[in-house]
């Protein structure tokens, strides 16, 4: 399964193809509000048909960046190019780009149908065609039964789909989504994420989504740009972001992670040995960073990459940390263990509960050993 997944991925990676022209290009885009720099010198290429996520905590500038793409804000510096043409000075109502607002921003005095038809009417499209296109898109978002309703007669999920339909009906070159699922409850959100992906795939429109929910970004995106304080920290596929974060910030923002401090003690052929007082052992890890002997490094370990055991490993060269079970969280499919190392550091590990019963389950205050393979840890510099 992994192999076939890899193949599909390989087939479509326009960002790795130097022949491919980017659909949207941001060149050194900066936005200042007075003394505050909301977006700081961002350069970014987004390709046609991508489902691109801008991910970051609130206040990181992701919404400002989206609003600049829509034309509600003008960059203080830099250029935004859509299909090669500069968007500077083009007002929102002349851009071939549509936006889905966080509040949905439905017109309260119009029915679902008229809401959706609004954008087409602005383009002076003949009535017959408007009706046909509205019907198509209403069917696409499965709202046929509610076409005559007013927004306040709809539930949150239905409103969300009206907002989506209204933005899609104009067949924009790019659809911008500002926290589109933020107002939905968890179950509905998970379901809607897949609906969004299906719709995006069906229409082939470039989607740029702003979100603070890392799980959502991981689920829907072809690529994610992780943002912090107006800058982009890393742009990569969900898989790369998770397995090869380029900084402690990204490692910590996406998923759970244990960060262990250490110093490079030996640079070997294809491996790095790191002495870490915190873990109480010498760590051997795959060489991934040009760090001289003595440099301070951090090792990021995902909880699920650690194996917990009550027996010390036979091979003394195995990466291993010893400690005491401090807390256990039983989630059904997983169990989360908080292990207090001898140094006092707390390490989280997650184990899949493969069997229904075990003879001697690991319990509180047990002495346990956490082991991991040399390629499981990510070595990070500053």
């Amino acid at each position: 399964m992994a192999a076939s997944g890899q193949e599909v991925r390989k087939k479509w990676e326009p960002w790795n193809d130097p022949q491919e022209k980017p659909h949207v290009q941001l060149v050194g885009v900066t936005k200042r509000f007075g003394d505050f720099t909301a977006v700081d010198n961002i350069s970014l290429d987004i390709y046609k048909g991508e489902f691109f996520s801008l991910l970051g905590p609130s206040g990181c500038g992701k919404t400002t960046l989206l609003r600049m793409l829509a034309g509600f804000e003008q960059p203080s510096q830099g250029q935004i190019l859509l299909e090669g043409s500069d968007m500077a000075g083009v007002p929102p109502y002349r851009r071939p780009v549509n936006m889905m607002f966080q509040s949905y921003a439905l017109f309260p005095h119009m029915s679902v149908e008229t809401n959706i038809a609004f954008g087409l009417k602005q383009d002076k499209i003949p009535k017959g065609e408007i009706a046909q296109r509205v019907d198509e898109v209403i069917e696409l978002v499965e709202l046929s039964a509610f076409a005559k309703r007013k927004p306040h007669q709809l539930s949150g999920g239905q409103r969300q789909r009206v907002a989506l339909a209204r933005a899609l009906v104009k067949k924009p070159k790019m659809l911008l989504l500002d926290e589109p699922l933020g107002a939905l409850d968890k179950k509905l959100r998970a379901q809607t994420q897949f609906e969004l992906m299906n719709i995006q795939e069906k229409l082939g429109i470039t989607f740029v989504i702003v979100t603070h929910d890392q799980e959502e970004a991981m689920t829907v995106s072809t690529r994610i740009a992780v943002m912090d304080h107006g800058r982009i920290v890393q742009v990569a596929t969900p898989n790369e972001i998770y397995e090869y974060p380029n900084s402690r910030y990204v490692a910590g923002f996406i998923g759970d992670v244990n960060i262990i401090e250490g110093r490079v003690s030996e640079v070997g052929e294809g491996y790095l040995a790191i002495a870490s007082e915190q873990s109480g052992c010498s760590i051997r890890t795959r060489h991934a960073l040009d760090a001289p002997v003595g440099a301070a490094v951090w090792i990021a370990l995902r909880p699920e990459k650690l194996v917990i055991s009550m027996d010390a490993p036979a091979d003394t060269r195995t990466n291993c940390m010893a400690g005491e079970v401090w807390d256990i969280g039983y989630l059904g499919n997983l169990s989360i263990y908080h292990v207090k190392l001898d140094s006092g550091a707390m390490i989280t590990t997650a184990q899949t509960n493969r069997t229904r019963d075990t003879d001697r389950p690991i319990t509180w205050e047990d002495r346990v050993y956490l082991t991991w393979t040399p390629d499981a840890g990510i070595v990070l510099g500053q």
Partner: protein
Amino acid sequence: MNKGLSWFTWSALIVGFSFLYLPIILLILFSFNESKLVTVWGGFSTKWYVELFNNQGLMNAAWVTLKVAFVSSTVATLLGTMSGVMLTRFGSFRGRTLFSGMIYAPLVMPEVITGLSLLLMFVAISWDRGFATVTIAHITFSMCYVAVVVQSRLATFDHSIEEAAMDLGCPPGRTFFAITLPIILPAVVSGWLLSFTLSLDDLVIASFTTGPGATTLPMKIYSQVRLGVTPEINAVSTILVGLVAVGVLVASVISRRSEANRLRDERLAVAET
């Protein structure tokens, strides 16, 4: 529920309401009085209403008042809505507080001063006082009421609705008429009604700014009362009270019903998901 009401509560209620409504009830009662003497009951009759409609002076004044009220409230609504929109949309600029304060100031300005200053201005530019000057004066003081009503509605208005319209290809000007105005229309209408009633019952400012041939109903009533109250005045006042009561009733019924409909619709939508 009534068990809890003591004699004290009842008497407080009765005293309170009689304090508010006894004078008006007396006025209405005596408008149906047969006798010409205002304070002596001479049997039921509607003859004063008939007389009223034959009283050319009162009818003219009523017509003038309606015209002034209609024109002034319409223009005031236009100007007031514009300033309300502007105050919420412009964001912060230098002197904004002063600016909005200046729009609200006429709300608390003593009427005598407003009237006097308007009179001085009309005299200074030697504009003959009459229908036009009264109308302008009424626009001046009722415009700020509209601005306040519209502005408070816009304060809770989701700005992204306008952005959505622009995003869908609608230029700003058209957005205002297609999206913003329909949504704030109830506030605009109530602003219009408010300035209509303000103009209808204004006596002070009208007396300062009016001229020959443009006597409003309140002025007419006031001047007639100085010569003694006639049952005709009672009759015209009763009609005014009736009009206002009907207006208030209709307005509250409409708003209550739309609110009930909205709640019902929302419950319906939630039940279906």
